[in-house]
């Protein structure tokens, strides 16, 4: 379906880029045909975003060249990329919250020294674009008040307004509800039929299969393969992404759950802006079981986990942990560890670690009041370092230097430090969020095994993950969250299809 003799819209030849010692892109070549939707998949850290940032002039490649419509171009700034007809929708939106949508669109393309005429002209052009592509965005409202979906459509409008012939979208559906994601896909197809080109960066294979024409797979900074989507299957892509066949199932024996450890009743959480993020949620987690919470990212799981770990106040309901009532104002979260709660947070860099600290100081995080680490009123440095060395050995953290700065460990090893700290304190309840995010395959298996061991030791585990495979292989029961509510409970043997329907907010019995 591509044009026969036409040169590719974009051709990257031999692109390499290093950040210090990290080689983010190695000798990458890629051709994107006009009028197609081209997917780029790869695990976190595979180098997708770096590559696209080079194409958008945000970074300079160390070597290699970029050709636009067959001609070699130097793209050394976003300005040059825009001039070459390249538009980009970043994962984190590049919008000024205090500006109106209209002002955001004209920023950088004001059409004169004063704003009056530019704004008027832009308004007309935007109304036309909105009509052509079904991009509904209120133009005169402050962007901070728009929904995430609207903000994303505004980003697309911005690119189109500046004459983008080719649009790059970086992980666009991570923050969208299924309905919004569908809306986005309709827009992308519309763009394609109008002859524009779309590059879609994602790690979700389902999206690749459903919307792209061609797909390129990246792994560890290298381009592994480019193939027509029709010739691909999710299994094949997954294999290409990770480099070998993935073991999706973990061996685990059946185990009868015991007494209730965590009891959540009618829990509701509103965020800082007063939006309800968790709505009347009730469930229990018993000793000796893993309860998995599945769902598309940003459907309330993060807020739930933070509330249960005492990091965030909640507005209604009760949380009982092994007989202790949790204070809704989150003022007693230091007590949770005394109650036997451990927490592996979703975002280890932001929450679980103090990256500039030495590894041993991170093993102390949350447990700095513990008697074992103290000598009188002072911290016992030697005991802390020795304990760290022991934990590092047990969890195979490499390199096993307790005095090494945490930032110098790889993502997988950092996560092992967090897990070692939390699991080794022998908790009765472990709250885990995205335990294998950004972690290499070897470490994933290790982490999964540890979680199963903990469960077999009779501990209660609440696992939140957006990776369906992970949930299905680890959990004894699966709860599905959608729009802040628990919309269903399934056994681990449930079909992916049924789980997907629940995650999209379609309850069984209703038609899709």
């Amino acid at each position, binding site marked *: 379906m591509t044009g026969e003799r036409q040169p590719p819209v974009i051709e990257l030849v031999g692109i390499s880029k290093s950040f210090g010692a990290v080689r983010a892109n190695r000798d990458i070549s890629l051709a994107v045909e006009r009028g197609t939707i081209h997917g780029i998949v790869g695990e976190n850290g595979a180098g997708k975003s770096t590559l696209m940032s080079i194409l958008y002039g945000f970074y300079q490649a160390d070597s290699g060249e970029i050709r636009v419509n067959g001609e070699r171009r130097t793209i050394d700034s976003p300005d040059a990329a825009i001039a070459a007809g390249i538009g980009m929708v970043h994962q984190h939106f590049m919008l000024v919250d205090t500006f109106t949508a209209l002002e955001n669109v004209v920023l950088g393309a004001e059409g004169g020294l004063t*704003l009056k005429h530019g704004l008027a002209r832009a308004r007309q052009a935007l109304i036309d674009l909105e009509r052509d592509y079904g991009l509904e965005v209120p133009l005169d409202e402050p962007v901070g008040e728009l929904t995430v979906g609207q903000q994303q459509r505004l980003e697309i409008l911005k690119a189109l307004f500046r004459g983008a012939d080719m649009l790059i979208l970086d992980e666009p559906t991570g923050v969208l509800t299924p309905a919004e994601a569908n809306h986005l896909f309709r827009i992308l197809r519309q763009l394609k039929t109008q002859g524009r080109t779309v590059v879609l960066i994602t790690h979700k294979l389902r999206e690749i299969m459903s919307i792209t024409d061609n797909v390129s797979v990246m792994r560890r900074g290298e381009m592994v393969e480019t193939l027509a989507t029709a010739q691909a299957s999710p299994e094949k892509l997954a294999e290409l992404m990770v480099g070998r066949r993935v073991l999706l199932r973990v061996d685990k024996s059946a185990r009868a759950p015991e007494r209730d450890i965590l009891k959540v009743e009618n829990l509701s959480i509103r965020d800082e802006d007063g939006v309800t993020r968790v709505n009347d949620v009730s469930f229990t987690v018993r000793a000796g079981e893993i309860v998995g919470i599945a769902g598309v990212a940003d459907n309330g799981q993060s807020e739930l986990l933070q509330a249960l770990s005492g990091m965030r106040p909640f507005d209604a309901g009760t949380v009982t942990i092994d007989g202790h009532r949790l204070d809704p104002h989150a003022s007693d979260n230091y007590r949770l560890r005394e109650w036997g709660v451990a927490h592996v947070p979703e975002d280890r860099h932001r929450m679980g670690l103090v990256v500039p600290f030495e590894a041993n100081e991170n093993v102390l995080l949350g447990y700095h009041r513990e008697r074992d680490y103290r000598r009188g009123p002072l911290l016992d440095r030697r005991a802390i370092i020795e304990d760290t060395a022991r934990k590092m050995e047990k969890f195979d953290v490499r390199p096993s230097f307790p005095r090494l700065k945490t930032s110098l460990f790889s993502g997988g090893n950092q996560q092992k430090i967090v897990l070692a700290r939390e699991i080794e304190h022998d908790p009765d309840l472990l709250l885990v969020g995205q335990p294998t995010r950004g972690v290499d395959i070897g470490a994933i298996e290790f982490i999964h095994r540890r979680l199963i061991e903990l469960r077999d030791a009779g501990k209660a585990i609440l696992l939140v993950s957006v990776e369906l495979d992970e949930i299905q292989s680890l959990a004894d029961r699966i709860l599905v969250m959608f729009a802040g509510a628990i919309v269903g409970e399934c056994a681990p043997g449930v079909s992916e299809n049924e789980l997907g329907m629940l995650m999209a907010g379609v309850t069984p019995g209703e038609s899709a």
Partner: protein
Amino acid sequence: METLGALFLLLDSALRLSVPLLFACLAGLYSERSGVFDIGLEGKMLGAAFAAGAVAGVSGSAWLGVLAALAASLGLALLHGFACITHRGNQIVSGVAINILAVGLTAQLGATWFHQGGQTPSLSNDARLLGLDWPGAEQAAGVPAIGQFYSEVVSGHNVLVYLAYLAVLLTWWVIYRTRFGLRLRATGENPAAVDTAGISVTWMRYRAVACCGLLCGFAGAYLSVGQSAGFIRDMTAGKGFIALAALIFAKWRPVQAMGACFLFGLLDALAIRLQGVPLPGIGEVPVQFMQAVPYVLTVILLAGFVGRAVPPKAGGIPYTKDER
């Protein structure tokens, strides 16, 4: 018409006292709206006041003095930019350094060059910016109320007074109605958005800092060749910080900045006026109390008990493209 006359005198004096605050406040507005915090307004003003006093004293020309003030203040502003924009240094530390540097340099150079204990030579009227009498001011003085107002309050100021109030209008227009203003505001809120739109954050911030320097230059020049006849050690006496307070009070908006600066000028004028005068029912208000009011008001406002002052979101944070 005794009280009316007194009121006009007070307003006149408030107007004069508000001018350096207003220039410095608008200066801070440009810088902080672009995301570069500036607690060095005081230092730039002081440097400018010294330069104006020195050059006007030596050359005998007020306008050469003003030019020198602009140059000196611009230089300090660019120094701030070099540290905070180019080298991503801490904006607060840089501001503190510039304030201290300005105190030391003006006093030392003043002592070396003029041998008057840090002062610059007293300026003759030719080397100062004098008040301009507006047409008909003298005749109007006889007319009660309106005429008096015209001759006492409106007329008779030096050119910088009018320029300060013109600068408010100009700043409003620039900030809200021009391309530069749109980009400036965006840079202070979300520099990454500006960068991806193909605009250089560095260049935007340098221009903002330069605007800040020039306006502080006017503020300083007003002090030494307008309000006084020469430079005196530490003659800014915390005005840069009052301007900063006014900027917060105005929530970083130009017209409100004018209001805040006039209010603080009025407080200052009142403090002078009420010195040693017992008020009925209250008694004598200590002058220190009046001097502290702007700072206390600002703290109350910052505490969010009355309204809320939200600074530009990216303020104080150096912009780095790669987060690796």
